[in-house]
């Protein structure tokens, strides 16, 4: 069974979103995504201060076999990027929901992450996709 933490929200492009507090979120890619990519050799994170639109390609995760875009699940301004990934891309394989986070966004206070998929919805989506 895939590791899909209940407290997070998800996208169909396999990003997760954690509400840190009202108006601030953390973004990464799911256990399923890192497993499908295989051993990562390079992670490119967005620059701090960059304004992102929902659905905008803003990071790249590269394994020896493929390089994939990561899309921002919601709009906002990048307040922090995970600098550790530059030298330790394997953190993303080892701990995708923790040390492997990609970037943090400042969103409007009105931003509602509950419009994204719940853990249950994402599990069902994965089930459907892998049928």
């Amino acid at each position: 069974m895939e590791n899909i933490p209940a407290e997070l929200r998800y996208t169909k492009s396999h990003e997760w979103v954690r509400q840190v507090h009202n108006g601030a979120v953390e973004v990464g890619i799911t256990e399923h995504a890192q497993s499908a990519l295989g051993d990562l050799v390079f992670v490119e994170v967005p620059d701090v201060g960059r304004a992102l639109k929902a659905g905008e390609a803003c990071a790249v995760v590269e394994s020896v076999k493929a390089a994939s875009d990561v899309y921002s699940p919601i709009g906002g301004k990048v307040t922090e990027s995970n600098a550790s990934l530059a030298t330790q891309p394997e953190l993303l394989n080892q701990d995708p929901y923790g040390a492997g986070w990609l970037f943090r966004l400042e969103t409007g206070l009105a931003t509602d992450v509950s419009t994204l998929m719940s853990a249950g919805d994402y599990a069902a989506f994965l089930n459907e996709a892998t049928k």
Partner: protein
Amino acid sequence: MAFIPHTSDDVAAMLTLIGAASIDELFDEIPAELRAGSLALPAPLSEMEVGRLMAERAALDGRPLNFIGAGAYEHHIPAPVWAITTRGEFYSAYTPYQAEASQGTLQLIYEYQSMMCALTGMEVSNASLYDGASALAEACLMAVRTNRSSTSRRILMPRAVNTVYAQVASAIAGNQDITFQSVEYDRASGSTLIESLAAYKGQDFAALVVQQPNFFGSFEEVDALTDWAHRNGMLLIAVVNPTALAVLKPPGEWGAEAGRGADIVCGEGQALGVPLAGGGPYFGFMATRMQYVRQMPGRIVGRTLDSDGRPGFSLTLQAREQHIRRSKSTSNICTNQGLMVTAATIYMSLLGPVGLAAVAQTSMQRTADLVAGATAIKGVRRAFSAAHFHEVVLLLERPAAQVLADMARHGIFGGLDLSERYPELGHALLVCATETKLAVDIDAYVTALRGAMAASRAAA
């Protein structure tokens, strides 16, 4: 597998299966006006007859003395270069599809990359690109992707950059919403001045292109231009002649700021052992800093260890290439001119740094000799004052096309007429003499030019 064309029985069987009565009926939907009709080919010839015909046609070209450069340069190619390049082990145009099975080919490309890094003073080179013009287009695309202090899709392109390169860059990168702002050259010196850039100071551009030596053969003040670009948040794209690099400061060291230099270096590699031919095949080269390697297009060969700890070579950083990343790859022109790179690598190995510098210095001297002889003729003078490499612009008191036609009658290709590219210069001629032009050839040039200029005065 035998490469035998379909027999008439095969053709009939296939037509029957798809329900067409004849080949004509199969292609029925192609409008008649689009068809070539009869090709009216002459009767077939034997090998001996073809050989004779071609020898006769080649003789019609004569053996002209060529003084045209403009991006393609006639240098002496030592006989071993192509004797080795055309050995069966090397004689293949492309990187093999099972690349790692061909360790020799990969090692050669790795050596090539190392030599290009040494010449340019950069940290990483790719395995080559299609040609110099498309290498500049790729460099512009790369600069827009790479420059993280700018989101601009604009590039500063001096008019003193090879006009064909600028056109190709505009044709390729222009379709990706990248625009080019041309920058005037200084009419007195023939180089690009910082003052000409002042109008763009503080504006958002992704990169400044600098060609050294520039299209006129003039030396640019690369240190000042590099520092200006960096101070204004732009990357510096260097377009360089690899022969000239043997005697010039490498682009990796341009500018006052230590450890910065040019950000992307590209150019045409033909001068390194590839014959002029009919304009190709040539090869482009590109080198950059390690921090930008993931944005560099093309193939890269890396040195590594196999599972038994033995040294070996492999293609690396392929995840950004088009066979994996499709439309989001760093480039969709991934041609690596493997055979030309093989010749260039052997050429550089044979000459070494001292030999290549001798080629550069001798070419400069021959051009200086040509300029001295030519400018002693009434009605001929240098267009620009800047120091030059092995190419120079002459101003004539007669249309260059007429002068060139007169010189051609004496078996001399006297240079490139610049009147269409730079009409503001008047009757201007771009002339190049490499080490292949001996004193007797320079004399022949000057004599033919003097005759052509005198003819115009007689006619006037």
